């Protein structure tokens, strides 16, 4: 599962930073039928979480109401240099993970 993450490369300590993530995923609702009439099984990313230096700073429970290739944006406070680590899992048990470093000054 491909994903794109955007956070500032550098921030001042205490600064509120914008975190953006875009994940490639069909977010299959479970209500659609294929060309021959069979129901397509529901498969959505159900949990997306973000840890900042090991501490969870964001968690979202997604459901079938979220469109394909979900885009999520949230804010957190830059406290120390380190990594933001994103983890998500879909109904089929497929896991995705991405990591992005940030340098905090001051």
């Amino acid at each position, binding site marked *: 599962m491909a994903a794109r993450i955007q956070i500032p490369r550098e921030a001042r300590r205490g600064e509120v930073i914008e975190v953006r993530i*875009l994940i490639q995923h069909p977010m299959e609702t479970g209500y659609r039928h294929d060309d021959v009439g069979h129901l397509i099984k529901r498969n959505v990313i159900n949990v997306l979480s973000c840890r900042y230096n090991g501490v969870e700073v964001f968690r979202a429970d997604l459901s079938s109401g979220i469109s394909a290739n979900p885009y999520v944006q949230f804010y957190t406070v830059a406290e120390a240099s380190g990594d933001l680590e994103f983890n998500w899992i879909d109904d089929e048990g497929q896991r995705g993970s991405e990591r992005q470093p940030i340098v905090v000054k001051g």
Partner: protein
Amino acid sequence: MRRARPRLVLAAAALAAGVALAQERAIPPGELKSGSAFLGSDLRALQNDDFANPGMLWVERGEKLWREPAGKRSIACAGCHTDQSMRGVAASYPRIDKASGKLFNLERRVNWCRGARMGAEPLRYESEELLALTAYIARQSLGLPIVTRIDGAARAHFETGRASYHLRRGQMNLSCAHCHDAQWGKRLLSETISQGHPNAYPAYRMEWQTMGSLERRLRACLSGIRAEMLPYGSQEYLDLELFLGWRAQGLPIETPGVRR
């Protein structure tokens, strides 16, 4: 003076041809509007946001594929083509392939390269790989105007494409021109009818919840007027794509566009 005369005549003929061509256009160049002009501000903003535009997922994948060796000869696209040489390429497609004299769109060109140069299997139409590669190639022409050549061997394809564009089809007995030349800007249920330009394709459509080629969009239109959909890669689509390119001459490439 005598020598100058044939040139003058030629110039006059060219001018007349130019005027005739300009008169053939249902939408004059000054009134051309990209499909994005008919979107709501939210979708327009999404398209212009290089990060959040979902089509960029395909562009990124395309860049990876571009640099990945493939096929029996294990060469990558990037093994022959430099990034600089790809700028503007997509804006000139569909175009005549010099070697075969056939009309190629980007999809056909990619598959031709894979077969003849790389010894690789062709990519299926609407496959994630082909969408990714064509999106990446088109992205490199971002902002450049469409330049479609309809001279020489392309002329016959252009005429067929034009005929195809004006052909009434399906249960609704509509041609492309009935909506996109005569009624653009008006409402069709909740939608505003666009001018039907190809400059944002491959594009991410909300209705599809994914990326799709121009041919997929053409098929969607045909389905909408309850006409028979032709198979992907058929010559009629290709000729029509050439005509659409000429019709949109000068509009900037927007790939990956975001559409309703």
